[in-house]
């Protein structure tokens, strides 16, 4: 018990850090994932190729390796002086975007082809068709897999702790170094993660209920 009361300020900072990196990289992953999914179903071959390369590269790279590249290589070449928080959020966001892309693409596949054909027959462009007709109808199908993806993202954010980002799992390292018993530390960390992941699944359940489409 003592470990939490003695070091509550650090624990709170870690919790806030995890929430922040989760939120920022979720937004990055969601936006990029939707755009890249659009690329992958686009009629323009170079965009399709880019989308496929993006997913293949990011999905198949171990996340730790991606963190290494973003935190140590990217600032050397591209953006010197960028904070570890931003770099870690980008790494996690890019990585997760490949999974979001594939979930969105599977959702696009569930919308009957006739919907897009009708939209294009009216003279809507490809991107209008995707934005106004296909994606809104794909949303509900995509929610359950997205919920899992964002929960995975939350837990993946623990790796950022190893790259000098303040987050929950880092608190565990800090406390065990100070000689506190390991089991209570892990229980408190686990409880904090549960708060975040339950909040995410709750949010998605709410969205699902509100997005019922009659067919």
């Amino acid at each position: 018990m003592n470990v939490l009361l003695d070091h509550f300020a650090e624990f709170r900072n870690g919790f806030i850090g995890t929430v922040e990196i989760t939120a920022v990289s979720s937004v990055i992953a969601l936006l990029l994932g939707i755009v890249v999914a659009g690329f992958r179903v686009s009629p323009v071959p170079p965009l399709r190729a880019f989308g496929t390369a993006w997913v293949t590269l990011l999905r198949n790279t171990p996340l730790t390796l991606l963190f290494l590249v973003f935190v140590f290589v990217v600032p050397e070449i591209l953006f010197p002086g960028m904070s570890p928080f931003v770099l870690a959020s980008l790494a996690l966001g890019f990585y997760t975007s490949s999974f979001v892309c594939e979930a969105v693409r599977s959702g696009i596949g569930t919308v009957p082809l006739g919907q897009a054909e009708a939209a294009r027959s009216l003279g809507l462009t490809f991107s209008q068709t995707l934005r106004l007709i296909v994606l809104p109808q794909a949303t509900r199908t995509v929610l359950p897999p997205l919920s899992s993806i964002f929960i995975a993202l939350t837990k993946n954010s623990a790796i950022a702790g190893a790259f000098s980002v303040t987050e929950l799992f880092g608190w565990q390292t800090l406390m065990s170094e100070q000689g506190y018993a390991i089991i209570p530390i892990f229980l408190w960390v686990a409880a904090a993660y549960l708060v975040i992941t339950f909040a995410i699944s709750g949010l998605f359940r709410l969205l699902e209920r509100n997005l019922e489409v009659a067919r």
Partner: protein
Amino acid sequence: MSGVSVTKVSKGPVPATDDLVVLSDVNKHFGALHVLQDIDLTIRRGEVVVVIGPSGSGKSTLCRTINRLETIDSGSITIDGKPLPQEGKELARLRSDVGMVFQSFNLFAHKTVLENVMLGQIKVRRTDKKAAEAKARALLDRVGVGTQADKYPAQLSGGQQQRVAIARALAMDPKVILFDEPTSALDPEMINEVLEVMQQLASEGMTMVVVTHEMGFARSAANRVVFMADGKIVEQATPDEFFSNPRSDRAKDFLSKILHH
């Protein structure tokens, strides 16, 4: 040869003639299947052309090539003098002038009936919302579903949905409307309400290409019947000529199968 050069008087954009849709020497394959074979077909402004034929004869494919929902392998298709462009903004603009009514209605499931009819006007024609709504309501009244405007497509009967789909096509003020088996997915008692709307359109001078199995409609509304079989246009004639005196054996065979029972 000299006679040919004399006819080529004008250069540049083809002058607007009475020929609205021109398919020449169109070929298309689905894998090994040669679905459209050397199709030549001209549809004049104001004409109602009904395409009939056994299933698998390529009539739906023919209809879908006209607004490039299906691409063609060779040949050319022009609409109002302009050849069909490649996928992109230009094609989108051209499609907005070519209405399409599908067998399975394809109303946007997440939008109300009214929104379905307003969408193209607002997003493609850039009409302001008020005008688009007024026009949509007028069109829905015209096809007899004005009272359903605020419902979702799934709440309507098939016949009502198809009439909404016709209103959606009309909202773009198209030069021609393509009907791809518009009544084939309907219960028998709903076929007539859709055919009546189409009949009315035909009598008002709308240019229409109708792929259908409704011989009654072909007889009463068509200016010309195009009979297709095995990817080819076998015969073209006025409805009277075609139904009372078909020339080809293929057409005789087809008619004998559908007209006697």
